[in-house]
């Protein structure tokens, strides 16, 4: 019995082998480059090259695709500004600034992109392609904490710095923190600390809360942080239900809320999930209900303008927290909104803002260190204090690579003046109120040398 696919003769094999040898000879120079960095250097050392490449790994498909698209816009803008093209954006307002508007250390900045598909596996495959094939010195991106954590540990293994984009889980700079990972975005703990006093003022001390939580690292830590805050206020937690990421239909999770005796629904959802769950909660009439003699309220701890746009009228009057909003009136925010608006015709989201800032911060740190050698770059980022990037004075804490800055508590506007003017800032919570001891979450950064 012979099931082989084609007749193999000695002649055809010889022919094939010759062809193979030919391609091999043509391709071999590229193949041996892989050892170039081994001589006491570091991975993807740009050496004397005229340009240097960084990678943007964002969700282009899946529940967080809207955020991903906006992040990519911001990254492109950041690359332009670092190369001295366009109006310079936040490079005009950042203090202290080492960048000169001629790329990084005189090398032109180039970029490659990839799709994380909001999946850890796909994100790591895409990041590995950037590192192994495109030779990036840094990669950045995010929109899901699970994916960000997966990429951060890859960064540590590979010895290439990862600048987290939008990731809000406490674990990213808590128990899963890494020496090669940095986060500018705020986290769930800060959301809880910022929201607490506002919730107390608006809703009182006697409330019964029901949580719907996205079932992964971000949802878990946010639920925990919000629970800690509200229970300290004296609220009771009736129930906390986990929902799968990207569920689409949340009606089966919302129906039980109606008869649970709860009078506050806390949605630990983000992106399209939040748009769907909030819309359905409103359609089920939750907000018109009276429970325990109080108006039923919905809280969305992590808010964004993109989600507000997706949820339409349902967002009106709902409280949440956010890292940044385009309506802020400081110099940095105005400069960023202006150059983003000029390039794309609409204001940036908070995801875009954090990604832009992260790219500039990395470039600036390299310029400060005077080298692309990761341990030196890491050292110049650790403990770095800066201002003029839209969040007021900010510090990259050395102990856990988390940025500390003011947090915004926002509410969906009742009478928006435009399709983008959807959130009003209720309070700019000062940094001192959201700060915490890095030890409470455990974890270890690991070594400088990968």
């Amino acid at each position, binding site marked *: *019995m*012979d*099931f*082989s*696919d*084609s*007749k*193999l003769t*000695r002649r055809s*094999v010889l022919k*094939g*082998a010759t062809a*193979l040898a030919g*391609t*091999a000879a*043509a*391709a*071999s120079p*590229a*193949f041996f480059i*892989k050892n170039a960095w081994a001589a006491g250097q570091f991975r993807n050392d740009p050496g004397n090259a005229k340009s240097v490449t960084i990678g943007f790994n964002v969700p*282009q*498909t899946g529940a967080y695709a809207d955020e991903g698209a906006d992040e990519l816009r911001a990254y492109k803008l950041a690359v332009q500004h670092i190369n001295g093209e366009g109006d310079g954006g936040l490079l005009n307002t950042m203090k202290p600034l080492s960048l000169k508007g001629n790329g990084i250390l005189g090398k032109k900045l180039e970029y*490659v*992109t*990839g*799709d994380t598909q909001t*999946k*850890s*596996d*796909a994100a*790591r*495959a*895409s990041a*590995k*392609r950037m590192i*192994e*094939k495109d030779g990036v010195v840094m990669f950045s991106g995010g929109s899901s*904490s*699970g994916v960000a*954590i*997966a990429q951060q*540990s*890859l960064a*540590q*293994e590979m010895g290439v710095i990862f600048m987290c984009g939008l990731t809000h889980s406490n*674990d990213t700079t808590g128990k*899963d923190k890494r020496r090669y990972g940095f986060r500018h975005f705020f986290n769930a703990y800060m959301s809880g600390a910022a929201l607490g006093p506002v919730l107390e003022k608006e809703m009182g001390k006697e409330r019964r809360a029901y949580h719907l939580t996205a*079932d*992964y*690292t971000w949802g878990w830590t946010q639920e925990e942080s919000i629970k800690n805050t509200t229970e300290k206020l004296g609220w009771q937690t009736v129930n906390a239900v*986990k929902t*799968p*990421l990207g569920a689409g239909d949340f009606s089966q999770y919302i129906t039980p809320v109606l008869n649970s005796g709860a009078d506050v629904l806390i949605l630990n959802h983000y992106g399209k999930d939040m748009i769907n769950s909030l819309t359905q909660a409103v359609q089920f009439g939750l907000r018109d209900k009276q429970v325990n003699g109080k108006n039923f309220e919905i809280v969305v701890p992590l808010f964004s303008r993109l989600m507000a746009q997706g949820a339409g009228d349902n967002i009106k009057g709902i409280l949440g927290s956010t890292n940044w909003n385009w309506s802020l009136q400081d110099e940095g925010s105005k400069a960023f909104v202006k150059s983003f608006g000029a390039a794309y015709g609409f204001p940036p989201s908070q995801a875009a803002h954090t990604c832009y800032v992260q790219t500039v911060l990395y470039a600036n740190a390299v310029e400060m260190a005077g080298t692309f050698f990761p341990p030196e770059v890491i050292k110049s980022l650790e403990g770095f204090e800066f201002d003029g990037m839209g969040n007021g004075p900010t510090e990259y804490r050395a102990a856990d690579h988390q940025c500390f800055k003011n947090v915004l508590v926002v509410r969906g506007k009742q009478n928006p003046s435009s399709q983008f003017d959807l959130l009003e800032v209720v309070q700019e919570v000062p940094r001192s109120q959201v700060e915490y001891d890095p030890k409470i979450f455990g974890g*270890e950064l*690991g*070594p400088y040398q*990968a």
Partner: protein
Amino acid sequence: MAQLWHRNDLLLMGVFTLAVLAMPLWLAPFGAGYPDLLQKLAIYGIFAIGFNILFGLTGYLSFGHAAFLGVGSYAAVWSFKLFTMNVLPAVLFGTLLAGVFAALIGFISLRRSGIYFSILTLAFAQMSYNLAYSVLTPITNGETGLQLTQSDPRIIDRLYVEATSGLPSTELFGLKMSGYPGFYFCAAILIIAFFFSVRIFNSPFGVKLLAIKSNQTRMGYTGYNTRPYLLVAFVISGMYAGLAGSLLAVTDPLAGAERMQWTASGEVVLMTILGGAGTLIGPLLGAGLIKYFENVFSAYNEAVLHQIFAMLPDWLQSAMVFVVNPFVGEGWHLTLGALFVLIVIFLPGGIMEGIRRLSSLVRRIIARSRRDGLQAA
């Protein structure tokens, strides 16, 4: 023993071994010569070969093979966490556990055939996925995925070395399993897996499986109880998937529930059909093509396209970029879908049928020109 080995099979094995080991060389011009993609090509090649043993030989279409891939991955990562960073126990553990799992699911699913069998396997896989995603979170770490941590026990390793400050990497007696060594490890296993698959195709057991595919009822009338053969094929195929899953963990010690999702099960079906079900090499080609699209094609953005069409005049360049752009980058699914439709309609036997048709065409042309040459003389 010698006559069991066809000369063609020996040649096939030889060429296959050479081609696999030389992959970094001949794939480099296509932009695929980097370790991560090469590892993926080898690993998904194993997955597809294993799937083909079931689908190609018996015709039983399993829609739940990703479950075994996931089980293999989780088992391997747990072996790294609990025992040692050496990859051999992890691979062994992953393959065996997937085999046990396949025996359980196969025992139940194989009571039905055709579409009912497919649906049963799909249901089991989806069940496993949901279990891994939420119920079994302590074992699988849910959506975040199972990862190594500093505080893992690693009992066997601790007997010999102190824990270092960084996370350890997977190794084969000191050789780190990332980058090219990782690829050659996977390649060696792929060659062994392929060897076994050739032996199965050419064995009396393989013939019985083929007989089941052509007419299971008649097979029963001739006195064969077909179910044990099917179950063995199912378990072997599940073990191949577990092997592939554990190799995924070897090259990148992380296991996520999305590996078990039905889309992952669908992917291996696509790979096999795209390459040519029931052929030895076909599934490998299909796996390679899909992984190539997913990793390389999806990374093309407008800037890259402008570079590709740089030699054209400006207006034509912009026009070409405009036309091609929806099909690359995040649109790679679209291209793959179109390709799949074309192949299923025009080449039902997959890429292998295309190659066969092409080679017979070439042969006919050569024969004709020789005949013409003779007549002219």
